[in-house]
């Protein structure tokens, strides 16, 4: 069970853009496969059915639908993941502000209970939809699809999804993004990639944030890069400070270039 995100301590239902999510109103018929009956009888009246289905299949299918939809809209979609407090919101705000003029950025923010992150982005003039997940410690593809309906996607070039601050659960949930971006702040230690390999392994981009605090925090940069290259050997690595802006330009150029070339090849997390 996830220990990082306060699972079970919160309460309430998933809310999108301030409205409670009514499950019955969004029923998605389940028709992706047949229940083949290879049953064999054990005792009279009892039979066993082999299903052999991934429990992530429904989410994966919805994520693929999102991906197709976002591609058709020519959106570059980022799924930003990290532990709590590694600077996701500031990073997103600075990315959006510095891309203004080149690319228009909209944000979907997932948070367990508060609207604080969304409010911080909104005051910066960025289009934002908030998903309050209640006790759910990750975003899933269905939540993202419904939140995206509340943004004017035709007026956006980049959709940034700020996932719930948690390095465990979101790793299993494909949202339909082009890029999974994992943040590692200099204040949280070099060994995070080794402690949470599924998340770091699944990311296409790893960003070392709060580089302005590296010296004060005693951050071992060489060790961090070695750990990242071990777990995320395929990932693009950026080192930057959202606060001072140092290192941001390389990241912004990367996004502009990626958007111009129609995103990246589909990613498969499973």
């Amino acid at each position, binding site marked *: 069970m996830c220990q990082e995100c306060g699972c079970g301590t919160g309460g309430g239902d998933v809310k999108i853009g301030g409205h409670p999510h009514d499950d019955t109103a969004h029923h998605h018929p389940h028709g992706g496969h047949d*229940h083949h009956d290879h049953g064999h009888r054990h005792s009279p009246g009892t*039979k066993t*059915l082999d299903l052999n289905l991934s*429990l992530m299949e429904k989410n994966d299918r919805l994520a693929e639908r999102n991906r197709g939809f976002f591609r058709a809209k020519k959106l570059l979609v980022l799924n930003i993941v990290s532990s709590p407090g590694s600077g996701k919101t500031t990073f997103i705000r600075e990315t959006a502000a510095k891309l203004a003029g080149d690319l228009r950025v909209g944000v979907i923010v997932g948070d367990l209970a508060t609207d604080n992150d969304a409010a911080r982005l909104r005051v910066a003039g960025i289009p934002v939809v908030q998903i309050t997940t209640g006790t759910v410690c990750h975003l899933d593809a269905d939540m993202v699809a419904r939140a995206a309906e509340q943004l004017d996607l035709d007026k956006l070039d980049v959709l940034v999804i700020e996932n719930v601050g948690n390095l465990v659960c979101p790793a299993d949930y494909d949202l339909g993004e082009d890029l999974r971006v994992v943040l590692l702040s200099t204040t949280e230690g070099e060994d995070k990639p080794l402690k949470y390999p599924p998340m770091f392994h699944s990311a296409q981009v790893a960003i070392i944030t709060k580089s302005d605090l590296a010296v004060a925090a005693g951050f071992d940069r060489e060790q961090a890069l070695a750990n990242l290259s*071990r777990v995320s050997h395929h990932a693009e690595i950026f080192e930057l400070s959202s606060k001072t802006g140092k290192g941001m330009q390389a990241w912004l150029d990367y996004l502009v270039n990626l958007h111009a070339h129609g995103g990246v090849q589909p990613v498969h997390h499973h």
Partner: protein
Amino acid sequence: MHEVSIMEEAVRLAVDAVKSSGADRVTSLRLRVGALSGVVPDALRFAFDVVCRGTVAEGASLEIEPVAAVSWCSACRSEFAGEDYFNECPRCHKVSGELQRGREIEIATVEMN
């Protein structure tokens, strides 16, 4: 909570299977959970009772089949047992990140009557 969402999906698939087979109740459910899936079996068991309540799966038993992690060594062209995402091949000592098994989160079988 991650395990609750996963269990909800398992019970939903089991209940669907019972309905489409014309049976009345789920009596047992078997899941396959990989050692590196990030899912904790105890948390699944805890979620199971809660999620089944009020469904045709209420009172059913839950079996969790663990799946050990197995890596592939491209140099030796063979599989070997590991404990992590990255494991050293016991033959050539090359580190492999190619995981063959161990990330499963699956529903295997449903027993019903």
